[in-house]
């Protein structure tokens, strides 16, 4: 999956693509508004205005803080577990060969089936939100890391042995730089999915956070609130992902 990303340089026309996509999304949004009316969704302009007013309010920021905290914990835990598990499974080839299809299968089952279990285990609040985030993010990080280690050309490790590197030096100076770009891609995918998991967790298992605001808006028929929060989340996620993608490309420039 890295081959397409590996080409150095920027594809032409990208500068034009992004505004076009934004314009298309706005048109779709306006279309949805025209179709469903203000009981389901608010118009782009009204939403942007309301979102801007929310940014000046304390209650909004305390919800942002709750989501950010849960997301931070989830991302750290999912990344740590994913990278370590991927490295371990990749280096212990047999275990990796056995687990990879299992992980891939696990990845495709709808996580919704696990929600009751998590609620039973963690109750409501931060731990449950974090758990939701982790179960969504950890498997892609593991799979990308595992693929990175398995895809490592054996001759690189043989070179390390031929140059009499210690295991520590091999890990630090050959293995780590060789798998880093692939792992970073895994973290980038894990980032989006972890955020998704946390938001879902907040809808099911919390009284605070962006996910809670979205659900709350729906329950109270506060369409303005729901649409504005969704807008802010989407914009934040897109910006973060664009940043990570740029970093990803930088990492791969030499490959």
């Amino acid at each position, binding site marked *: 999956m890295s081959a397409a990303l590996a080409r*150095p340089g920027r594809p032409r026309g990208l500068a034009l693509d992004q505004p076009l996509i934004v314009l298309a999304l706005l048109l779709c949004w306006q279309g949805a508004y025209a179709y469903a009316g203000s009981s389901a969704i608010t118009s782009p302009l009204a939403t942007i205005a309301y979102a801007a007013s929310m940014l000046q309010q304390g209650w909004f920021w305390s919800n942002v803080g709750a989501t950010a905290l849960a997301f931070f914990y989830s991302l750290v835990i999912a990344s740590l577990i994913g990278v370590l598990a991927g490295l371990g499974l990749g280096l212990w080839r047999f275990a990796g060969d056995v687990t990879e299809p299992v992980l891939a299968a696990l990845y495709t089952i709808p996580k919704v089936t696990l929600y009751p279990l998590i609620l039973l285990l963690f109750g409501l609040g931060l731990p449950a939100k974090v758990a939701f985030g982790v179960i969504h993010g950890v498997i892609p990080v593991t799979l990308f890391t595992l693929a990175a280690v398995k895809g490592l*050309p054996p*001759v*690189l490790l*043989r*070179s390390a*042995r*031929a*140059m*009499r*590197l210690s295991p520590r*030096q091999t890990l630090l*100076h*050959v293995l780590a*730089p*060789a798998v*880093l770009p692939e792992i970073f891609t895994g973290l980038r995918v894990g980032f989006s999915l972890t955020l998704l998991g946390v938001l879902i967790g907040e809808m099911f298992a919390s009284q605070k956070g962006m996910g809670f605001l979205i659900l709350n808006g729906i329950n109270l028929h506060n369409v303005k609130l729901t649409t504005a929060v969704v807008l802010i989340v989407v914009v934040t996620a897109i910006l973060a992902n664009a940043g990570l993608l740029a970093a990803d490309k930088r990492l791969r420039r*030499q*490959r």
Partner: protein
Amino acid sequence: MADGLAGTASVPGAASLAAPGSPHASMRGVTRVYPGAAPVHALGPIDLDLARGEFFSVVGPSGCGKSTLIDVQAGLAVPSAGEVTFEGRPVSGKVPDGIGVVFQEDASFPWLTVTDNIAFGLRRAGVDPAEVRRRVEYAVGFMGLRDFARAYPVQLSGGMRQRVCIARTLVLQPRLILLDEPFGALDQQTRLLMGDELLRLWRETRATVLLITHALDEAAMLSDRVGAMSARPGRFVDLLETGWPRERDSSLVAEAGFGAITARLWSHLRAESLKAMGGAPP
């Protein structure tokens, strides 16, 4: 054990060709079988003594175990039977100090520039930075990589990457250099010139060289001795001495004896290559 006897018998005069005194590196009855559901007998039995400072080449049909031979001599693979030594000490499971290996595959590190690739081993060994710079600069020039010192491997051709790998090994100043088809990715002209450079380097460093090649003329021109290997499991079917002077270069290809050596190698390899490809020898 019949195998072992057959292996020794098929190398007439191998012992007499060995250097006087103790060999720099040696293999005694070495075989390598890749284990598995259907074990693959890849190599041997092999008996070989490399004299200190000797240039020895191995030619053999594809898949006959040449790379396996290098792995075993380097300590990268453990022989299934037999003994391997380097400078009088047994080799097994670990690459001894003083052996340098250039692999058949591209082993350049894609995340490092040409310069950093070449300096890699020296830096890990804790060599003084000034000395690293001196040796790397020399190697970069020697290998004709001056214009690409700051380039990354992806920006280089296959042959240039292989030169980076050769340089990375040479700067470590190994006393025994194992080269596994290092010029495989080069065109004939560059190959001959690189051969000249290799000879110059060999004379200057006084290192022992074990070169695997599929080019018969290269083996004939570069070597003091050439070993011709059978189809898998590879054994030496012929060990011939070229008798070239130590001061030599690619102009040897015009010598009268050169054609005779190449012809003799081909007479062995033709039959073995046919076997390796599944055909019957004529």
